[in-house]
C-alpha cells in the first residue's frame, strides 16, 4: 500500500485512502521518446500480470474539446493556457489517475505537471506561483526525466512529425521561424527540467541511446519498486 502523499493540501474535501497502485511518470521535452517507452513498459508490465492505465496531457474529457479549440485559434495567452492545462490535469488526477491507483493499477503518465510548469516559467510565469498551482498533485512513486541534447531532438522531430507551432514556442515569438524558435524554446525547457531534478527526485535517463537501452534502464528501476512492494 502506498500512502497517498501530495505536494501541498491535495484535495481537502475528499477522503483519499492508501493507494495500492503505482504512479510512474515519464518526463522530458518533445521528441525525447516518451511515448515509445510507455508502449514498451505497458506490454512488459501486462506480460508480468500488472494492470496498466495510461494518461497524458490534454486527455481530460472535460477540457479536451475546449482546449484543443483554443489552441487551434492561437489566442491563448500564457496564464490562461497555464490554468486551462491545470484544469485538464486536475480532472485526470481526480477522475482517472487516483481511481486507477485505488484499483491497484500501474498508471503510466506521459508527462506530469512538471512539463506544464516548465512551459509556464519559460513563458514568463512566476516560478512559485506555477508550483503552488499544483499543490493538489499526488507525489508519484517514480519520475523519469528522459534527457537528450538539442541536436538529437531536432533530428527526431524533422524525421518524425515535423515542427509544431506550440512545441516550438511560436506563441511567445522569440524567433521568426520554426527551427530557430524550436531550438531556443527547447533549450530553455531543458534548463527548467534540470532545475527540477533534485526538487522533485527525477531519475535522469540518457535518452540519446538506442530505445532498448533506455527501456532496460527504466525496467531496472521499476523492478526495484515492485520488489519493495508486497503483492500477496
Amino acid at each position, binding site marked *: 500500500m502506498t500512502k497517498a502523499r501530495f505536494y501541498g493540501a491535495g*484535495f481537502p474535501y475528499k477522503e483519499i485512502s492508501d493507494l495500492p497502485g503505482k504512479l510512474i511518470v515519464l518526463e522530458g521535452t518533445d521528441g525525447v521518446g516518451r511515448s515509445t517507452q510507455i508502449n514498451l513498459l505497458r506490454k512488459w508490465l501486462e506480460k508480468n500480470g500488472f494492470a496498466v492505465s495510461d494518461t497524458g496531457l490534454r486527455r481530460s*474529457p472535460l477540457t479536451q474539446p475546449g482546449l484543443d*479549440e483554443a489552441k487551434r*485559434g492561437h489566442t491563448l*495567452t500564457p496564464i*490562461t493556457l497555464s490554468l486551462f492545462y*491545470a484544469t485538464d490535469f486536475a*480532472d485526470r488526477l481526480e477522475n482517472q489517475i487516483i481511481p486507477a491507483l485505488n484499483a491497484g493499477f500501474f498508471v503510466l503518465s506521459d508527462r506530469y505537471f512538471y512539463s506544464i510548469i516548465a512551459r509556464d516559467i519559460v513563458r514568463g510565469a512566476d516560478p512559485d506561483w506555477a508550483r503552488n498551482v499544483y499543490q493538489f498533485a499526488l507525489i508519484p512513486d517514480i519520475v523519469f526525466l528522459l534527457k537528450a541534447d538539442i541536436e538529437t531532438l531536432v533530428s527526431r522531430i524533422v524525421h518524425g512529425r515535423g515542427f509544431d507551432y506550440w512545441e516550438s514556442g511560436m506563441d511567445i515569438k522569440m524567433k521568426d521561424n520554426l527551427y530557430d524558435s524550436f531550438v531556443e524554446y527547447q533549450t530553455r525547457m531543458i534548463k527548467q527540467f534540470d532545475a527540477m531534478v533534485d526538487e522533485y527526485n527525477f531519475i535522469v535517463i540518457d535518452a540519446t541511446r538506442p530505445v532498448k537501452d533506455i527501456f532496460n534502464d527504466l525496467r531496472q528501476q521499476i523492478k526495484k519498486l515492485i520488489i519493495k512492494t508486497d503483492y500477496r
Partner: protein
Amino acid sequence: MNKMYKRNPCKGKLIVVEGIDGSGKSTQIDLLYKWLQSKGKSVYFSEWNSSPLVKSTTRLGKDQRMFTPTTFSLIQATDFADRWENHFLPLLKAGVIILADRYAFTGLARDVARGVDAFWVRNLYSFAFQPDLTLYFQIPLDTAIERITTSRAKIKYYEAGMDLGLSENKLESFRIFQQRILDEYERMIDEFEFKVIDATKSVHQQQKEIRELVRNILKDWQGLAIPNTTHMKNGKGNKTGL
C-alpha cells in the same frame, strides 16, 4: 492587505463589486457605469464567467455535472485569466476605468466554501491586482434569499452547491452554501480592504455613497480621453464597446 496581491500600478482604475447573490451589486454597478460614461470617462465593464474561450468547457462541465471543487475552481480561474490578460491588463495600462461585476474574491469565497484549500486558491488568482476600490455589498442571508426566490425562476445546480451534497432540497442546499460564502466574504473584509456597503439601504442611498467613494479615487486623475471623432452610444448596450 494580502501580500500576494500587488496594488494596481497602472494608469487605469480598477473598481469591483462583490457580495452574495441577491445583494444588489449588479444594479449598483450598472448605475455607476452609466454615471461614469455620462461624465465622459473611458469605462469598460466585465462580468464574472464571461470568457468566450472557456465558455464551451464550463457549459460541458455544468451540463454533465463533471466538476469537482478543484476543477470548478480552476476553470473559473482560467476564465478570469483570459479576461485578465486580454482585457483588464491592457485596458488598465491604457488608462481605462474597469468596472468588474465580481472579481477574484468571488473565486476565493466560493471555492473555499466548496472545500478547497484557502492558500491554494489565493495563490491561483495572485496574478491579479488588488483593486483601487472593492465595494462589498453586505446583506443578511434571509434578505438576499428572499430577493432571489421572488425574482428568479430557478436556482441552478452548482449555484445551489448541490455538488456538495449538503441537502437533497435545493433551496436548503442553496441556503447552507450561501451562508458559507457569506462567511468567507466577511473574513476577507480586512484582508482585501473591502469597502462595506449596507445593501439593505435604498438603491438610491447606496448609489450616493458609492459615487462619493468613486469620486475620491478619481480626484485629480486623468484617464484615457475619449476621441472626439467618435460618439459612444448614449449609455446603453455598449458595455463592451472598447
